[in-house]
């Protein structure tokens, strides 16, 4: 099957591949682009290699979470820096099944979170060095992404393929590879970030809204139940169980708590943050007229211990009690309520 050759036109329209055989019936309901005088760009100009018919993809999906499973193939074709602010991803989806698949919403984000039909705005890039998720760039004053759109193409027919591209905010200069995340495929790891031979000025020159780069975090539990933590790219947040640190309704630290606090102090010593926040919380039982001061007293008690244990100099402690506010877990189960009864120690890594 011959894939549509890349036209570097002004309109940003994704195209479907179809067979260009003499006299053959056009099978695809997708915009063909072959007689489209306004041209179509299924690959951005100047890309590092997406437009070459023979170039192999950087990565191919093992399978998809769609009704077609591995009969739908998703390829990552290229990932290029076009300038210091903009990275362009190009991809291809190919339908190798007998039946069609709904294309209009295949790669879209949920509508209530800014998703747009007929676009790939549900695709994101993960910077695993800094643990950030890059959402697509959005053109100023618009809602859709700075990306392909396949307006009007509802289904991807059997045997057809579609190429599309998405522009993203760049990661820092020292990032050399990223993960590509879509709505329907396992994350593609280790996609090399190259530099475009030449920037596509129609893309890089588009005025854009504020870039959306979201921090990632990971919740982790110690199996003995005494602590959990939340790790992000920049910060560590250790959540010590109040049930271990204190007797019921008390705010004096127990002797069992010593090990846990020594371990936290050691982490603080090895970190770089100059400010350590200590926040006390309770579950939602009882009432906050008691819970707030109790959690504040507990935060202060932990601060007293840590001040003695931490050896790195120049550290400032900030404490607060929040009562039942800002639960980290559900209050609907005992397991969740136990997680919510905590003192959290947070600092920059």
């Amino acid at each position, binding site marked *: 099957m011959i894939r549509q050759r890349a036209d570097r036109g002004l309109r940003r329209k994704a195209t479907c591949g179809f067979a260009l055989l003499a006299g053959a019936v056009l099978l695809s309901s997708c915009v063909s682009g072959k007689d489209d005088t306004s041209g179509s760009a299924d690959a951005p100009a100047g890309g590092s290699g997406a437009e070459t018919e023979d170039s192999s993809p950087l990565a191919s999906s093992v399978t998809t979470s*769609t009704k077609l*499973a591995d009969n739908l193939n998703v390829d990552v074709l290229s990932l290029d820096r076009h300038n210091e602010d903009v990275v362009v991803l190009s991809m291809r989806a190919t339908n190798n099944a007998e039946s069609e698949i709904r294309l209009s919403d295949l790669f879209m984000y949920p509508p209530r979170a800014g998703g747009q039909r007929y676009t790939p705005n549900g695709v994101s890039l993960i910077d695993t060095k800094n643990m950030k998720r890059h959402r697509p760039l959005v053109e100023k004053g618009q809602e859709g992404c700075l990306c392909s759109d396949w307006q009007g193409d509802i289904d991807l027919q059997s045997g057809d393929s579609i190429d599309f591209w998405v522009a993203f905010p760049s990661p820092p200069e020292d990032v050399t590879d990223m993960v590509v995340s879509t*709505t329907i495929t396992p994350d593609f790891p280790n996609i090399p970030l190259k530099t475009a031979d030449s920037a596509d000025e129609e893309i890089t020159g588009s005025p854009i809204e504020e870039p959306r780069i979201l921090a990632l975090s990971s919740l982790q*539990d110690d199996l003995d139940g005494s602590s959990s933590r939340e790790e992000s790219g920049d910060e560590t947040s250790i959540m010590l169980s109040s049930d271990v640190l204190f007797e019921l309704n008390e705010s004096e630290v127990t002797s069992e708590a010593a090990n846990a606090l020594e371990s936290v102090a050691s982490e603080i010593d090895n970190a770089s943050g100059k400010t350590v926040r200590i926040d006390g919380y309770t579950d939602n039982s009882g009432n906050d007229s008691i819970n707030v001061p109790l959690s504040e007293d507990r935060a202060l008690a932990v601060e007293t211990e840590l001040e003695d244990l931490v050896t790195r100099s120049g550290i400032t402690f900030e404490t607060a009690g929040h009562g039942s506010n800002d639960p980290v877990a559900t209050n609907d189960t005992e397991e969740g309520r136990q997680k919510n009864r905590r003192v959290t120690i947070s600092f920059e890594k």
Partner: protein
Amino acid sequence: MTLISRKVVPSSAILAMSSGLIFGIPSSSAADDEVPVLGTANAESDDLGQSTIEVNEATRSTESDFVTITWTFRNNTGKEYDAKDLGNTLYPYNDYSVSGVTALDEKAKIRYHPIQDSEEFCLCAGQFYPHDFREKIPNGASGTYWTSYMIPSETNEITIEVPGFESLEGVTIE
């Protein structure tokens, strides 16, 4: 990084279709064999019947902590299964997803929950928004999903825990 090449429909088949003949389009019937299986776990909970979980891939992104597990739910419950039922019951995640699938480091005794972004969306199969997303698995069929975790690079073996199933131990991270 394994690149699995995919055959697109040969042009001879398209020519056949365009001239009105009905030829079966070769589907990649062998494709199921191409999805690796690293391990299998049986259902523990009664309402999951003879359903099983398979881990297909466990991949780390370069030298980072970012690990993605690809896994398959084979539905033998006797009825349709909704992947929404695999949401995390301890920590809140935005919208429906398979956020309840956790990774256990048996040696360090740490349980990892899937990564979330600052809008609390899971970095895992979720929202189930596309019309043809395999959210509901017919009885006798399977659905393949993924979950991503921040697992320190020193950890190269984990156990995958899917609610209602036995733990799937000894998964090596590539």
